[in-house]
């Protein structure tokens, strides 16, 4: 009986969501829009795990969501993307955050939380521009070609007054100083996305492709985690590194060449590159996996971004979980949710167009 009531409320809520164009009201309506006018509170516990990159955002989302839905407890364990996806595939969690989309071989396996034969969905929930940060006295921004950035991190360009840097920065007095390129010593999605950019824009210079573990022959200095890189760059002189843009602080940042312009990182520029990128081919319609176009020439797009995905089941075995995930995911993609995360973590909100596509996927969760 309880289930029937819930289903009724659910149907009503879904209709409202589908009818209204403002997808961001979904949470409120699910919580209060019962057919008979009485309040049906969402209750239950929702467990997720995955990428630590969006941990700060998840904290902000959980806080806001639990205030709106006091009966719901959401847990997000930032175990790392790989572990997060593995836990979801073991049926231990109901949703996952991941810095990379489902691998083809993962989609061939079974998902115990999902009804047999149904596939999981995914869409970008978190876009994080990766800033190329440096520490040079008196210089707060530099322009660089993609090949120059690749040359620096591959250990080929070793001095700050190198002609390729000077050519892109007329009028800037570059010191005759050794470059120390700092990279992540732990495996990270940030490294993977950054090196993917290097490999795509400068395949002759950066020849090892997108990697998580740094190749020894490229040398440079390793540091643990985003904080480690930022503190190594801050602590040294003539250092350069890459880190989540929200952590760039007072360090100098590099504007990279896109088309004919040099583009500095910004939330809008980061969201723009996702919209300008094609979807991964051969995926079903609920699978919004983007192949980020690092070579984009779209004006105002910043191609060094980390895109993290939210993942869940199209059809949950447990219908109560389906209801919770729908409300939760709707909140995350809502303008309110995206802005809440951006305000607390400094990432880039996904664009309105992408929000609508994601909401369409969420509405079909069963």
């Amino acid at each position: 009986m309880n289930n029937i009531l819930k289903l009724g409320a659910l149907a009503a809520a879904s209709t409202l969501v589908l009818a209204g164009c403002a997808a961001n009201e979904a949470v409120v309506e699910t919580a209060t829009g019962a057919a008979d006018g009485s309040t049906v509170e969402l209750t239950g516990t929702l467990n997720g795990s995955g990428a630590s990159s969006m941990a700060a955002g998840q904290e902000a989302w959980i806080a806001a969501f639990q205030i709106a839905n006091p009966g719901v407890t959401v847990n997000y364990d930032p175990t790392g993307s790989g572990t997060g996806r593995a836990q979801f595939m073991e049926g231990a969690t109901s949703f996952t955050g991941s810095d990379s989309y489902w691998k083809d071989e993962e989609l061939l396996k079974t998902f115990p939380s999902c009804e047999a034969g149904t596939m999981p969905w995914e869409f970008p929930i978190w876009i994080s521009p990766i800033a190329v940060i440096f520490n040079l006295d008196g210089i707060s921004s530099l322009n660089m070609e993609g090949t120059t950035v690749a040359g620096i991190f591959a250990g080929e360009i070793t001095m700050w007054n190198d002609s390729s840097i000077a050519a892109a920065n007329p009028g800037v007095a570059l010191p005759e100083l050794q470059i120390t390129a700092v990279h992540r010593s732990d495996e990270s999605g940030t490294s993977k996305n950054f090196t993917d950019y290097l490999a795509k824009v400068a395949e002759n210079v950066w020849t090892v492709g997108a990697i998580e573990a740094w190749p020894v022959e490229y040398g440079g200095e390793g540091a643990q985690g985003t904080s480690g890189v930022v503190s190594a760059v801050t602590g040294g002189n003539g250092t350069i590194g890459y880190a989540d843009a929200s952590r760039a602080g007072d360090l100098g940042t590099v504007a990279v060449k896109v088309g004919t312009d040099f583009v500095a990182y910004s939330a809008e520029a980061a969201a723009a590159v996702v919209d300008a990128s094609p979807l991964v081919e051969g995926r079903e319609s609920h699978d919004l996996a983007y192949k980020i176009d690092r070579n984009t020439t779209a004006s105002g797009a910043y191609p060094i971004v980390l895109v993290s995905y939210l993942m869940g089941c199209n059809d949950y075995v447990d219908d109560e979980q389906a209801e919770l995930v729908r409300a939760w995911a709707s909140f995350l993609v809502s303008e309110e949710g995206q802005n809440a995360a951006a305000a607390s973590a400094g990432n880039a909100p996904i664009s309105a167009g992408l929000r609508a596509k994601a909401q369409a996927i969420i509405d079909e969760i069963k």
Partner: protein
Amino acid sequence: MTDTKPKVVRRLGDVVFANLAFFAGVSILATLATVAAFLFAQSVPAFTGPPIDAASEGFFSYVLPFVFGTVYASVIGLAIATPLAVGIALYISHFANRRFAQILGYAVDLLAAIPSVVYGLWGILVLAPFLSPTFNWLNENLGWIPIFAGQVSATGRTMLTVGIVLAIMVLPIMAALIREIFLQTPRLHEEAALALGATRWEMIKMAVLPFGRPGIISAAMLGLGRALGETMAVAMVLSPAAVVSFAVLTSTNSNTIAANIALQFPEAGGNYTNLLIATGLVLFAITMVVNMIARWVISRRAEFSGAN
């Protein structure tokens, strides 16, 4: 003492305590066995499963730089810590007045209470920048010595910095142990030396140090054991690479096994996890060997335990 044993009266308290003690003892063995079994079982897929990108040239060429880094960092740490620990122990046991010796003893013990992550932070934010100019000087003036050669790190996050951090971390346990050994020097030996006209330094050289040598060695072994397994401070301070490198001032340093596991585990998946656990097994083996050597040295000490 007579050879005839008195009849044992078994009281309830005795039985309970004996059993508790027995289980405490056995639980150590059981824990050790469980850990070893876990390491073995979890290591197997690294060898039987599909090839792993990170170890494309086989397990041993993967783990070799880390074994080297682990031992190298610990040896540097020990080389710095041992003379310091002996000095501290001598000062506390034979030179300082009792009141000051007590305060100093507390201070040394306090070093042991600092969490390793704090040492890591201190290493990155304070020690590394502080040492950086010294490293430049060493490289310019003593660069002809291979270990000081190479391109000096701009941030100071090098093998030598890690060695110094490790030295400070193992110092308390070593100093405390050596101090206890020195305090056990037979009073008669010391007084005899002094009575023969030895100065205090000569007395220490002739009576205290020979008596304490096995103790110093076993303290060093315990310190080494701690240094080998140190994870957080190394992971935070060292700028690592998968190479075997003797240079201590560059950005390219051999990582340690423990730090490598800490750095790679969070994002590891599939049998890469098993590979990391297999490196953990190697570390386990190294540490066991070190501890066995320490045991052996301590047991040898019984042979010449002074005047007794």
